[in-house]
């Protein structure tokens, strides 16, 4: 505030000076050294005089003086001041560098307020647009990845526009949401996550991709309770405050931004060839039905005890289309039934097998492109920014893609010196072309892996060839035949008005609406397995989510006796969310051309529904600051929510925090080495009930239990009048440290968050008629360390000089279910929820070795029989050499369900990001490395692709399977049906998921003004970018950044046929006019 007044004075003085004399004109342009944008409002002063000027909207200035020689001083808030000696030149083009000490000076803290970072008592991370601008990412959540300590971002898959999980300081809920609250320009979003009504597998869509990341100015992450508790019952998972770009006074500047590039798969799946697959299939029967003493192959009870002609016949019977019959020699043989593949001939002569590379059929090089045009400018009283953009990202798997058209208008107007208003409207329409995925027999990548390479792409008549022995779809048909389209159209708008009622007291009212419509259209033509039986099948769904919002706030701030600053904020808030949907499904289409339901003869389903929830809350926050040295802050919030049990609908959420700026103490003030030293501490309570169904606490009788085409009713939910918020108590101790004029800064936080009253489906014995009800039981703890370093390794001495900045953030988080209150339970494929363990623990059997001899097995069986009787076995009656021996953990002599233990943890021990930014002359280079360390991935894909027990396509790794001659291996034998259950959940498929990934590498060049001004440009930058350039990992799957259960709280970190991320290379240009 003081600075502004001073600057104002300077400006007035300069203007006064201008009128006095005119002899010489100095002019030029001041730009941001990094971005090349003209900087408006820079003070240009003839040093030692009061002669000067202020730059215009383009950064241009003109000074007239009668003085000769001297020095020009360029100063601007937030930037390092620069001096230029005036020689004979009259033209000065200057680039100013951001001042590290003042970097992130002002932090947005919610409900229209902001605070100087120096005075902050809570833990808030800031991510600026420059860090993610023009990266080929779909949403704001992706922009956060690796940028802030304590914020863990996982792209669950590479599906374009799909779900991303963001966890701030760990996971605090089992059944509730763990996603932070997103607030865009003051409007809390209720619509995040997937709005689709269509299950295509495990991956959903992501409503956050509705917001164009390039419209964002900055993102603040409120991490500790002191910062987040003003959001009360929505604060536990942290709060992400998104501020969009706004206009600045001055001549309208036009920016055109365009990039385009190509994406490719990082690692291709490698399958057995058709011949190898055929041999492996035969091998399964050789091992399962060894020849008897008479040298015959018998397969009871098929054809009784008759011998089979050959293993090829057995394989063709099970895996081919053929029928077995008894030949004149009295043997069973399998005939050919007109198939061109997988018949007896193929098994008799494996080298004749077709050989299809399914990966080649469904993968492609996909272009990604982005176009944006923005206008920004205005008068002193009215500023605006308007932008429009189009982002198009086809997926690397055929059939997938995401595109978004977006527009945004932000307007600010000062009605008077006491009243101002602002309007922000974002419009967008996103189109997702979706494909079936993950745990889905019609999934595209799923089938490309599960359909064996000995199946050709098409039959001779041109139809898709299908595996005769499996229910899997033809991969190419899965990719190219169905229509699965989702269109999200959304308006997010908010408006605020601010009055200065009396001096130091401001009132602000914000009204907002977030209106989302989501339309799903699917059509499964008769060329697909799913559409065949029903003569084409189509679904149309329309969903609508309307979020109405208001908050009113009073802000008071006053400094007493120049030492005591008191500020207070009182806020009341109301939110109403109405969700509705209509849904229809039809079959019996006349063909595959008309894909709308109008053509479906049989409407097999139609419904509509509506549901609502409301939240009312308010808080009071008071800050006290003594000379900028001692800062104390306290807040109390009360919330009312409609989703909870009738007796527990309200709750209080207090917080208190303090900071001591040691560097402001007299003994450190002015110290040349220690430029900043601050100790912070906070304690607070937050809540969480998001993710809970709207009437979770109510007893319900549901319709839809119909019979005989008449509506029926049934009890569906038990009432819990006591259902309440999860409550989290958080402690944070932080240290902010700056050295050498903040060339080196450090922020460290120690935190602990204890969540109690966890929302959980309290399981009931099924014999009660219910499997459980929503209740508050259990506690969870997250504690950790966050470290952030920023160092300016080399500071540019002049504009265009070499500069190098390094930013490192590291987070250690420990998560533990301190009390579960219910029996341990399983989730996903291998995940296990148990007291004393973190969420994301994996449980299973432990592989000891591969059995090499039958004697070994017999000895173990004999021992088991001593204890458990004559039919007992160590593992299974059909265990043979080449099968896996699992560890008998409880030592009882046989393998049972009890011989399982915790074998891994999907949560990393450490994660972080490492960014280096270099610039020299017009060039800039940014390298961003993202690291995850110490987590396990359960690779369930291998349970199929290395299962060797059925017809599924196998990975080339099974060439190293156990055989009597290849015994030194960790891959068991191939055997039909897997009687030893080698594929059970075990350490066999558990892998180290640690990785370090060079996520982004950006090289840009800003053209000199002297060049571009000739073509009437004010700025021009060209750049090339590479994403997911290189990944260091031991993980054997396609991509270590994976979670097959999109956004799951319990079963994350499992890989099952999941769409991997792409490597993308893009090039772009940003032009300013």
């Amino acid at each position: 505030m003081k600075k502004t007044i001073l600057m104002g004075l300077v400006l007035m003085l300069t203007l006064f000076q201008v009128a006095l004399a005119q002899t010489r004109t100095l002019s030029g342009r001041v730009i941001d050294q990094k971005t090349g944008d003209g900087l408006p409002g820079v003070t240009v002063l003839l040093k030692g005089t009061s002669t000067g000027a202020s730059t215009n909207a383009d950064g241009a200035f003109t000074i007239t003086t009668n003085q000769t020689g001297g020095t020009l001083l360029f100063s601007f808030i937030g930037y390092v001041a620069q001096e230029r000696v005036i020689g004979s030149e009259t033209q000065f083009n200057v680039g100013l560098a951001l001042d590290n000490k003042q970097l992130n000076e002002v932090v947005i803290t919610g409900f229209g307020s902001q605070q100087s970072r120096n005075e902050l008592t809570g833990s808030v991370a800031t991510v600026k647009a420059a860090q993610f601008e023009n990266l080929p990412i779909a949403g704001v959540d992706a922009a956060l990845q690796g940028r802030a300590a304590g914020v863990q971002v996982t792209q669950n898959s590479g599906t374009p526009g799909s779900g991303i999980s963001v966890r701030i300081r760990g996971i605090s809920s089992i059944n509730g949401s763990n996603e932070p609250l997103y607030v865009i320009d003051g409007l809390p979003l209720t619509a995040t996550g997937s709005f689709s009504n269509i299950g295509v597998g495990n991956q959903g869509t992501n409503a956050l991709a509705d917001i164009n990341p390039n419209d964002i100015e900055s993102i603040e992450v409120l991490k500790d309770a002191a910062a987040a508790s003003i959001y009360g019952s929505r604060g536990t998972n942290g709060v992400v405050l998104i501020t969009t770009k706004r206009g600045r006074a001055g001549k309208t500047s036009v920016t055109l931004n365009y990039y385009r590039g190509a994406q490719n798969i990082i690692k291709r799946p490698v399958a057995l060839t058709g011949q190898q697959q055929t041999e492996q299939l035969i091998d399964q029967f050789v091992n399962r039905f060894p020849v008897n003493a008479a040298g015959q192959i018998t397969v009871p009870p098929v054809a009784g005890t008759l011998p089979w002609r050959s293993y090829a016949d057995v394989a063709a019977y099970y895996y081919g289309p053929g029928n077995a019959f008894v030949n004149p020699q009295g043997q069973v043989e399998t005939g050919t039934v007109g198939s061109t593949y997988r018949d007896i001939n193929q098994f008799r002569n494996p080298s004749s097998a077709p050989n299809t590379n399914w990966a080649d059929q469904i993968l492609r090089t996909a272009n990604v492109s982005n176009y944006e045009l923005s206008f920004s400018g205005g008068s002193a009283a009215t500023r605006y920014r308007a932008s429009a953009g189009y982002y198009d990202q086809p997926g690397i798997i055929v059939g997938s893609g995401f595109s978004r058209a977006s527009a945004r208008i932000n307007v600010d107007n000062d009605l008077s010196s006491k009243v101002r208003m602002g309007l922000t409207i974002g419009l967008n329409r996103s189109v997702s072309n979706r494909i079936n995925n993950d745990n889905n027999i019609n999934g595209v990548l799923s089938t490309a892996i599960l359909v064996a390479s000995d199946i050709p792409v098409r039959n001779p008549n041109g139809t898709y060839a299908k595996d005769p022995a499996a229910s899997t779809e033809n991969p190419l048909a899965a990719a190219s035949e169905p229509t699965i389209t989702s269109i999200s159209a959304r308006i997010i708008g908010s408006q605020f008005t601010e009055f200065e009622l009396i001096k130091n007291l401001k009132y602000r009212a914000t009204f907002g609406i977030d209106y989302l419509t989501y339309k799903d259209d699917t059509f499964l033509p008769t060329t697909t397995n799913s559409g065949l039986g029903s003569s084409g099948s189509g679904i149309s769904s329309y969903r609508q989510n309307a979020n109405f919002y208001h908050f009113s706030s009073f802000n008071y701030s006053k400094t007493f006796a120049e030492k005591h600053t008191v500020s207070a904020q009182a806020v009341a808030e109301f939110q109403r969310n109405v969700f509705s949907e209509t849904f229809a499904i039809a079959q019996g289409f006349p063909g595959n051309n008309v894909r709308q339901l109008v053509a479906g003869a049989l409407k097999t389903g139609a419904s509509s529904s509506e549901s609502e929830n409301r939240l009312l809350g308010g808080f009071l926050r008071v800050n006290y600051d003594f000379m900028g040295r001692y800062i104390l802050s306290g807040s109390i919030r009360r919330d009312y929510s409609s989703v909870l049990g009738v007796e527990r609908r309200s709750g209080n959420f207090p917080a208190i925090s303090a900071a001591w700026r040691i560097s402001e103490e007299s003994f450190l003030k002015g110290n040349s080495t220690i430029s900043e030293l601050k100790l912070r501490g906070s304690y607070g309570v937050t809540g969480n009930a998001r993710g809970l169904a709207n009437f979770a606490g109510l007893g319900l009788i549901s319709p839809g239990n119909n019979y005989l085409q008449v509506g029926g009713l049934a009890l569906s939910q038990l009432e819990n009048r006591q259902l309440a918020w999860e409550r989290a108590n958080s402690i944070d101790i932080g240290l902010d440290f700056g050295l050498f004029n903040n060339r080196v800064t450090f922020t460290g936080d120690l935190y602990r968050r204890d969540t109690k009253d966890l929302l959980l489906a309290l399981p009931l014995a099924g014999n009660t008629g219910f499997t459980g009800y929503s209740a508050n039981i259990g506690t969870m703890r997250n504690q950790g360390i966050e470290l952030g370093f920023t160092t300016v390794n080399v500071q540019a001495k002049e504009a265009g000089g070499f500069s190098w900045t390094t930013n490192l953030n590291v987070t250690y988080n420990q998560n533990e279910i301190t009390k579960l209150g219910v029996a341990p339970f399983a989730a996903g494929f291998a995940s296990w929820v148990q007291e004393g363990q973190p969420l994301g623990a994996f449980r299973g059997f432990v592989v000891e070795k591969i059995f090499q001899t039958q004697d070994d097995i017999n000895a173990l069986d004999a021992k088991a029989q001593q204890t458990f009787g004559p039919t007992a076995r160590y593992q299974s009656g059909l265990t043979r050499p080449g099968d896996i021996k699992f560890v008998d953990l409880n030592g009882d002599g046989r393998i049972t369900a009890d011989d399982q233990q915790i074998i891994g943890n999907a949560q990393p021990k450490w994660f972080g990001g490492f960014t280096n930014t270099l610039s020299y002359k017009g060039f800039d280079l940014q390298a961003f490395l993202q690291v995850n360390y110490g987590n396990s991935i359960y690779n369930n894909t291998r349970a199929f692709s290395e299962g060797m027990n059925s017809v599924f396509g196998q990975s080339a790794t099974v060439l190293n399977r156990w055989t009597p001659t290849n015994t030194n291996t960790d891959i068991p034998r191939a055997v039909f049906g897997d009687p030893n259950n080698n594929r059970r959940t075990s350490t066999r498929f558990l892998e180290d998921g640690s990785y370090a990934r060079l996520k982004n590498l950006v090289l840009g060049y800003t053209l000199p003004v002297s060049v571009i001004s000739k073509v009437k440009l004010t700025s021009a930058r060209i750049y090339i970018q590479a994403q997911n350039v290189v990944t260091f990992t031991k993980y054997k799957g396609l991509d270590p950044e994976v979670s097959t259960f999109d956004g799951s709280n319990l079963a994350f970190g499992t890989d099952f046929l999941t769409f991997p991320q792409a490597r993308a290379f893009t090039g772009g240009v940003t032009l300013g006019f």
Partner: protein
Amino acid sequence: MLKLTHYLQRGAFLLALGLGTAACDKAVEVNPQNNLDASTGFKTPQDVNAGLLGCYSNLQSGNYMGLRYVVFADMAADNARHRGTFPTFAQIAQNQILPDNVELVNIWNTIYAGINSANYVIQQAGQITDATFDQKDAIAEARALRAYHYMNLLGYWGGSTQGYGFPDGVGVPLRLTPTTNITDGAISPIARSTEAQVNAAIREDLDYAAANDATISPSGSGKARLSKASILGLRARFELRQRNYAAAVDFATQALATASPNALEPSYGTIFSQKFSQEALWELTFDAVNSNAYAFFWFPAANGGRGEIGVNAGLAAAHIASGTGDERRVVNVVEGSTATPTYIASTTRKYFRVGTGDDGVQLIRLGEIVLIRAEAQAQLGNLADATLQLNRIRTRAKLLPIVVGPIPPPTTPPAPPVPPAIYIVPDAADPTGQQRLLNQIARDRRLELANEGHRWFDLRRTNTVNAVLNPTNNANSAYAQAFRNLWPIPQREVFNSAGLVKQNDGY
């Protein structure tokens, strides 16, 4: 401090919205629009009828008679084979079921949800005093459904390794009142009752139901709900399982007398190609909107299904062994030679409506009652009626009748020729022919009721699981131990019962 907090809260709200705390509660009061608030309960006869329909809807679940309960009874035995991808199905097909098998968990929970729905209808119907409302009829139907659920639970989880109705038989938790809230103790864990205790409850329910169900023997879509005839049939099935042969004969005879008409459907295939055929006593009906996945699970992917199950090769062999001309063969096993675009090879003609998913499910039909009577009579030594009943089934299947007795000498014209038949000639090992007649009834029963959800229970009640399914006889099964005759109680149930629900032995 407390007072201050309160003041601050109030202040914050009053400042902005002028609302007090009471108004705050009101401001967040929202009523459900998609459901009924359960505290209201059933108020009218229409509500009770809707509740009864809800009970039938429960049966339609894919975890119950809508697929899994039925399919597993044949897949765990020797009529169907697992050819798909679900590991949980594979465990069942191979008789290597683990207690955490999710299919079992779902079946168990679905049946108990059905019991709770029935209990709720019984309770709520008892509270409605409307002169036009036939309270007893509604309660009878709900009680019959409850008995049916308990029979089904005992089928997989109860009894003892040698069968049902033995003194050491274990039962399941027995709940006869509904769970409607979490506060009155209804959700407290209870232990398993003995088989005998559950049996007593089943008999009591069926007695009440048979006496009070106002529908005697409906026709057409009336067969979609229980009636006196089908309730008596269920009772006959129950008594046969318990080896109470006299009672089985009695109830089977009553059921046959009550059913109208009570003649078998002349053509076996019609039972399945039509809906509510003459044969059906109680048929679970589906339509395109409210469909099932039978055909979807049976049909291969290339024909619009998912090919999870197929006909066990042994079933085709059994048909061939039973004699030429068995008309059931073409229905039970679609072979390459008899496949058509509608009926796909390696499936059954019993479930073929893959597009609409509206294959009817025969919950109880005349053919079964006739076979129950035949078997029970044979067990009682009444071989004449036993063969009479069996031959009703065989004749329809276009098979030669069975005759117990010496082969008559060939006649010479003009004496009428001896009608062709299959003779069971008494011999020293089987002086009355009873044993061979029982074996023949068992073989015909397998073929007659193949893939209708009976086989596993037939093997269990006749204590022949091991003989039929041990791996030397059946490669699809890894059956080894008798304890597997009782399926494991879902682990989840054991975990959530405070130690009261004990696991079956061996698991």
